[in-house]
């Protein structure tokens, strides 16, 4: 809605650098959507006829779990932190459910997985919030702990065997109404919750406040340790949910399944305009960032480039977008 207003405003005037700068600063999501649109056009030019509702559905389906993990990064980055344990937690939770679904059942599996994720988040939160350990180190250490325990669990469960539950396959890879990914049923409410939580609740404001100026927020009475503990618990539980979708999407239960999504999740949040130094950003941009990354990797693979070239272009693009973003938002 706001998009239309801004575009009619800028319609008659020339799109000068200053205006672009203002637009970027006020609403980073608009230029990002522009970039996404360009990428969609590029996809169509490379392979005429590929862009369709089905294609869009496939893209969105692949982007949803990444967007959830990037949400963890967005929220922790707002406070000036980062969560490097999301990959390990997501893999662990998908794996735990896959091993428990045969015996104790799906509901128990989900509960156990999310409870373990919450405990991991609680420990990270205590480390970051009370002991003031750098979030990078705290979450890195926790990811080693989670990976180790997941491996132990794996060895113990070898004899019982495991399989991704059908419900997860439906949720992660299923499609309804012809092209709409079923994972949106989970993701849309989740995204609304995150956006409302960040913009409309006191807790969301506290996240921005702590990241923007920790001392000022402490002096104005914010108990940052409580905020941080809750934050890392939320982040870990979200990562656990993303793990369900990953295992459903790929139909694989492995203790390292989502590890490769860790760095892209940070990249998606960065491209989406969330500052890694804290205090600036939002979830809207992050979602578009996750979509952009997904479309780019689809373009690169449809061009038939080898994995090597894809990685190089991927990295170059992250720097390019981040640099453009820094350039226009800084005076």
């Amino acid at each position, binding site marked *: 809605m706001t998009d239309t207003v801004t575009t009619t405003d800028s319609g008659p005037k020339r799109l000068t650098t200053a205006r672009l700068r203002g637009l970027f600063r006020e609403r980073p999501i608009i230029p990002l959507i522009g970039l996404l649109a360009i990428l969609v056009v590029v996809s169509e030019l490379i392979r005429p006829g590929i862009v369709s509702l089905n294609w869009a559905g496939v893209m969105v389906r692949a982007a949803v779990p990444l967007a959830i993990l990037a949400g963890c990064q967005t929220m922790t980055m707002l406070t000036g932190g*980062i969560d*490097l344990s999301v990959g390990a937690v997501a893999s662990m939770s998908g794996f735990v459910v896959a091993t428990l679904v045969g015996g104790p059942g799906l509901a128990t599996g989900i509960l156990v997985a999310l409870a373990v994720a919450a405990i991991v988040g609680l420990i990270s939160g205590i*480390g970051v919030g009370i*002991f*003031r*350990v*750098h979030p*990078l*180190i*705290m979450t*890195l*250490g*926790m*990811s*080693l*702990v989670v*990976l*180790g*325990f997941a*491996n*132990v669990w794996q*060895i113990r469960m070898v004899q019982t065997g495991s399989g991704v539950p059908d419900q997860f396959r439906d949720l992660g890879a299923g499609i309804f109404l012809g092209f709409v990914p079923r994972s949106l049923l989970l993701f849309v409410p989740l995204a609304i919750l995150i956006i409302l939580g960040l913009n409309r609740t006191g807790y969301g404001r506290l996240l921005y406040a702590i990241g923007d*100026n*920790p*001392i000022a927020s402490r002096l104005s009475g914010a108990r940052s340790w409580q905020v941080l503990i809750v934050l890392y618990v939320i982040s870990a539980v979200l990562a656990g949910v993303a793990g369900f979708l990953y295992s459903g999407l790929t139909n694989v239960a492995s203790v390292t399944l989502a590890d490769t999504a860790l*760095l892209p999740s*940070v*990249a998606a949040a*960065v491209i989406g305009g969330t*500052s*890694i*130094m804290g205090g600036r950003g939002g979830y809207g941009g992050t979602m578009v960032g996750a979509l952009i990354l997904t479309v780019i990797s689809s373009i690169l693979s449809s061009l038939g480039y*080898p*994995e*090597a*070239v*894809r*990685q*190089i*272009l*991927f*990295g*170059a693009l*992250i*720097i390019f977008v*981040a*640099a453009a973003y*820094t*350039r226009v938002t*800084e005076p």
Partner: protein
Amino acid sequence: MSTTVDTADQSTARPIGALGSMIRRHGWTLGLVGILLVLLVVTRLIQPTYGAAGVQGLAVSVLPLAFAAVAQAIAVIARGIDLSVGSMMALTSVISAALMEERSEGFAVLVVIGVLLLGCVLGAVNGSLIVLTRVPDIVVTLAMLFVWAGCALLVLGTPGGGSAEWLRTLTGGSIVSAWIPRAALLLLVIVAAIWIPIRRSRLGLSLYAIGSDPLAAYRSGVSVTRTKIVAYTLTGLFSAFAGLTLTATTGIGTPVPGPYTLLSVAAVVLGGVSLAGGRGGVFGPIVAVVILSLLRTDMTFLNVNTNLATVAQGLILVGVVMVGSLLQLRKREP
């Protein structure tokens, strides 16, 4: 933000603070060495056969990670962080392995020099990008992680290549006595020869200055941008050393980056380098790497599941850092 306040606090209590922090800085490394000695004794008690051969194996196995930790330490001291260390290692390792395969021993000398120069170039590119784009270090090096790893895959699609014989003898075996592994001596000589002169020079002072307070450094005439590029160039150089030793100790080049980047960050923090920059040295992280590796060996001797060993590694990392920051918190309170 909080760091500015820290420095303000320190400047009011300068006479005691400077001395205290000096003792503490060396105290941390000395403490680590003490832990290492205790661990060696414990290892001997657990496994009476652990002797010179064990120490040699240990030295060879820690060599790449130790160089990576030094590389990371320099970036962190200058208030940066380099997430592309592992990828730069992979790139330099595959290039050296691809060039040295079935070539003369003399040609390998040229390869080593070339690869070390390449490491400097890679680091300089990282540093220049950080300075030019003004994007936070962690984001730029995260992106470069993909770029360098992609380049490594372009050079060698699958693990392969070879290593010169003299490189392998340089890193393996022992010298003078069976208890002094060649690998350890190599590591110490290279790091000391490069780092100590730098540390004593104006450049070293600038590195620590931009690490502890970039603005103050700038105002006292230090070129923050140039120093930062130099810091990343050194990080690239030591990553190249790490990549070369990876080739030398394994005999091949592997294009997929190992877990070295994150482990190097962990080792740097355990080694007493503050992630806020400006504090610590490169020898603490080296000792930390040896300790972590020896702990793993001990747990293998004790028949601890290797996965529980990973858990222990994570817990030790978190625990030590927690103790460290508790000490710091307690110091600040009165």
